[in-house]
């Protein structure tokens, strides 16, 4: 028997993605999602969370948009990360088209901020958009996997698709996530947090 969902939506289940929180940047040094603060849910309510980035604009040319996490009860955004990074790239001028793994942007048990968007341009019309999936952050058995794909309008007038993935190598629950720029601030743009039911 067809259920309401099948009849009405014929595709996604309407409850499958739930908006939890929208943060809008305005020359912010950081944007943070902390479970239990400002209506943010980042716990066992959902097995998967999705952050969507729209038109992030940097104050400093060539800055990277990066992120880190903090374990419940911990201090500092400095979880251990092992990650991969590759990108496809093409200049508006028609050169430098390539697909490359970039070893300077991955981490091997590092505790630094992990890149999502590299080398953003700061012209008035330049920005970056994309998404980050974070799986089961509240688990206390497994490492925490993440997958991201983001597209940047690069500082050298390029189209750059950034692919990052990895895991927070901790069995502690993750309940805080922070986003920053590698230099300058997050001049504008939105980050939305969704729970995936």
């Amino acid at each position, binding site marked *: 028997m067809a259920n309401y969902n099948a009849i009405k939506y*014929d*595709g996604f289940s*309407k409850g499958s993605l*739930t908006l939890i929180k929208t943060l809008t940047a305005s020359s912010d040094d950081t944007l943070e999602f902390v479970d239990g603060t400002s209506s943010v849910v980042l716990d066992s309510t959902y097995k998967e969370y999705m952050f969507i980035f729209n038109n992030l604009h940097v104050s400093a040319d060539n800055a990277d948009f990066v992120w880190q996490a903090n374990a419940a009860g911990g201090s500092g955004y400095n979880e251990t990360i092992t990650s991969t990074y590759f990108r496809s790239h093409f200049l508006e001028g028609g050169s430098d088209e390539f697909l490359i793994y970039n070893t300077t942007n991955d981490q091997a048990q590092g505790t630094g901020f992990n890149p999502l968007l590299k080398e953003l341009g700061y012209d008035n019309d330049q920005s970056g*958009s994309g*998404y980050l999936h974070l799986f089961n952050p509240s688990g206390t058995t497994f490492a925490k996997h993440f997958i991201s794909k983001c597209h940047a*309008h690069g500082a050298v007038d390029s*189209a*750059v698709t950034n692919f990052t993935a990895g895991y927070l190598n901790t069995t502690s629950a993750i309940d805080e996530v922070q986003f920053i720029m590698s230099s300058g601030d997050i001049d504008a743009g939105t980050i939305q947090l969704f729970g995936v039911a």
Partner: protein
Amino acid sequence: MATYQDSRYNIALPSGSGGAIVPIKTLTASSSDDLSFVNGSSDVVLDNTYRTYIFKFINIHPSTKSAFTVNFRDGSSAYDATKTTTFFTCHHGEDDSPTTLQYAAGSDMAQGTGFQNINYEIDTDNDSNVSGEMYLFSPSSTTYVKHFMIESSATSDDGGDQITRAFAAGICNVTAAIDAVQFKMSSGTIDAGTIKLYGIA
């Protein structure tokens, strides 16, 4: 009080939240020259109602061996927004060859206005098709360029039947709002298939 959503999914949703993926429009091809989503036409919403839009294309089948493509309208009546894009693919043949991952320079664009390839050519075997999705971010912005990212999987024929997974992404390098998106084959018609448009609230 339990809500419909609670009972349907057997989960307690946080207070004040709701379903965030909103179906907007489904188009079904039938030997169609193109499938177009035009804001304000036929119940299509493609404006600042949503920040992020997702197009799902399912079982797109061509009438002639050709590539499934997309373009964007930025103010005029034509689908010709200026784009800079990247494109790469991985392949695996049904006979175990090729097995490749490669940047495809012939399918990207540098400030081009033509239709962007979503995948390589799909042959016309009855079971051949392409399926995938495209994210389009903030199409109504009049400040920034418009980012889009496409992933698809096709049953293609490039010297032998194979899967081709393609990754296309780029910008419409315009600050004018994008108010319509058109899909079509590089030649012939879209013989069959479905494209769904969703808004993410």
